[in-house]
């Protein structure tokens, strides 16, 4: 079996890569190991609008659970900093139905001409003289060798493809965030509930945060992400999250609709994402924003660059590493600086105490911000709490 491009994984990164590669004229196969694209959901489901238009993803009621007007960042002692969505970072705007969102993106890939298989697992790479030449696939019990000019690893956090190709994607424990989320319903809403994505900082979620992303007027994804180097015991995530939920009066009568576990990378950009015949994209390429833990926007934007690069290759017939380097350079131009800066900022945030968070968030709430940026936040802190700035001095 022969294709120009085989994409492993049918999440947003895989579907966007497939869409743009197929649109550019490449013969594309996208394979998904699960029986259903988009399911089970492993996601907090909060996204912003900013990348959708550039990636030709029209807003569609079918995957939008609701739109929020902004974010609320809450300190340990209850100071609340509200951000209007026009000024927010990566993780507010739309709360999506992720399973439908992923299927919609796969549909776009199919409409562009990509073939899609489900319940098809990649089990190894085919190689010739150091170059990747295809992938071994198990599809419903059948073992197949699929030859390809380029294999794309869009296989998520647990990515195998990159490791098989010898690309270093291994994470340090301080750059891993373990996650647990419940979808809770019958929440007793307060005044603001369902209008904001809520983020709770401090020692209730060491080296991470608790999120409450509303799905409807009484339902929300309530989750926690904790840095792995702060997790000492088994199932500690659950203890932290259950403890937090028990303290929130809105959750007193809440009941479970589902439960989600997973992990995200919160690392600096990796050194390489391409080798001869292979490219990595999305979570597999460790493109998750180290501050928010959000991966969809970066996956889509990088997927577009990769897809366009592969489409171009199919036109010229040049599938060389030089051609793939256009993707490597392209995604770095878009994302690398932000990823690195946010990784540095994350490392600083992990050193803050509850008192620090109270002071910072209290100050931000008092002052208000017309423009949200790490730089502007630091300026405000410098004016009000010069001592705290010492912890951030090399970021300014």
């Amino acid at each position, binding site marked *: 079996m022969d294709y120009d491009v085989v994409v492993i994984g049918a999440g947003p990164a895989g579907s966007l890569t497939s869409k743009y590669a197929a649109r550019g004229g490449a013969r594309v196969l996208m394979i998904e*190991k*699960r*029986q259903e694209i988009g399911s*089970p959901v*492993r996601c907090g489901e909060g996204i912003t609008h900013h990348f959708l238009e550039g990636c030709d993803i029209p807003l569609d009621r079918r995957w939008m659970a609701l739109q929020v007007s902004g974010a609320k960042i809450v300190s340990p002692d209850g100071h609340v900093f509200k951000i209007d969505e026009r000024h927010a970072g990566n993780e507010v705007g739309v709360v999506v139905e992720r399973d439908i969102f992923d299927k919609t993106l796969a549909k776009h890939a199919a409409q562009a001409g990509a073939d899609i298989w489900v*319940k098809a*697992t990649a089990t190894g790479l085919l190689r010739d003289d150091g170059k990747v030449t295809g992938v071994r696939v198990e599809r419903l019990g059948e073992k197949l060798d699929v030859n390809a000019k380029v294999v794309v690893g869009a296989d*998520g*956090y*647990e*990515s*195998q493809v990159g*490791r098989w190709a010898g690309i270093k994607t*291994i*994470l340090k*424990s301080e750059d*891993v965030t*373990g*996650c*647990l989320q419940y979808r809770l319903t019958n929440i007793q809403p307060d005044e603001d509930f369902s209008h904001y994505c809520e983020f709770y900082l401090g020692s209730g979620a060491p080296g991470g945060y608790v999120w409450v992303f509303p799905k409807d007027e009484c339902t929300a994804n309530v989750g926690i992400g904790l840095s*792995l180097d702060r*997790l*000492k*015991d*088994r*199932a*500690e*995530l*659950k203890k932290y999250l259950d403890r937090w939920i028990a303290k929130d009066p809105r959750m007193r009568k809440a009941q479970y609709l589902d*439960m*989600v*576990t*997973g*992990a995200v*990378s919160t690392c600096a950009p990796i050194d390489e994402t391409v080798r001869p015949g292979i490219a990595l994209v999305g979570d597999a390429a460790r493109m998750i924003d180290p501050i928010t833990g959000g991966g969809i926007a970066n996956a889509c934007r990088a997927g577009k660059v990769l897809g366009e690069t592969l489409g171009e290759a199919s036109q010229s017939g040049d599938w060389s590493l030089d051609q793939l380097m256009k993707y490597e350079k392209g995604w770095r131009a878009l994302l690398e600086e932000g990823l690195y800066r946010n990784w540095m900022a994350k490392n600083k945030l992990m050193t803050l105490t509850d008192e620090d968070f109270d002071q910072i968030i209290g100050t931000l709430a008092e002052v208000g911000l017309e423009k949200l940026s790490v730089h502007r936040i630091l300026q405000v802190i410098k004016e009000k709490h010069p001592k705290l700035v010492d912890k951030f001095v090399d970021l300014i």
Partner: protein
Amino acid sequence: MATSSTASGRGHTQGIIADSGKMVLDISLCMHCGACVGTCPTNSIFMHETLNTFDDNCTQCGLCARVCAVGAIDFPRGHRLSRQR
């Protein structure tokens, strides 16, 4: 790989245990989320549709047991860090 049921009669709440000799997995708890797979520094865990398996490269570093949100991964019985009795 040895697979045994300890669901009843042992006074402990575990379900179906898959024991690789290096690490053990409680299949009834596992969510197949892949957190352990992506975290493993030696790429010793492979995620199949219904069963994650550990291979011989496992160094028993325990990161998988710590990152697992539901506590499905443990050291084998007899290991000093095992929670199994």
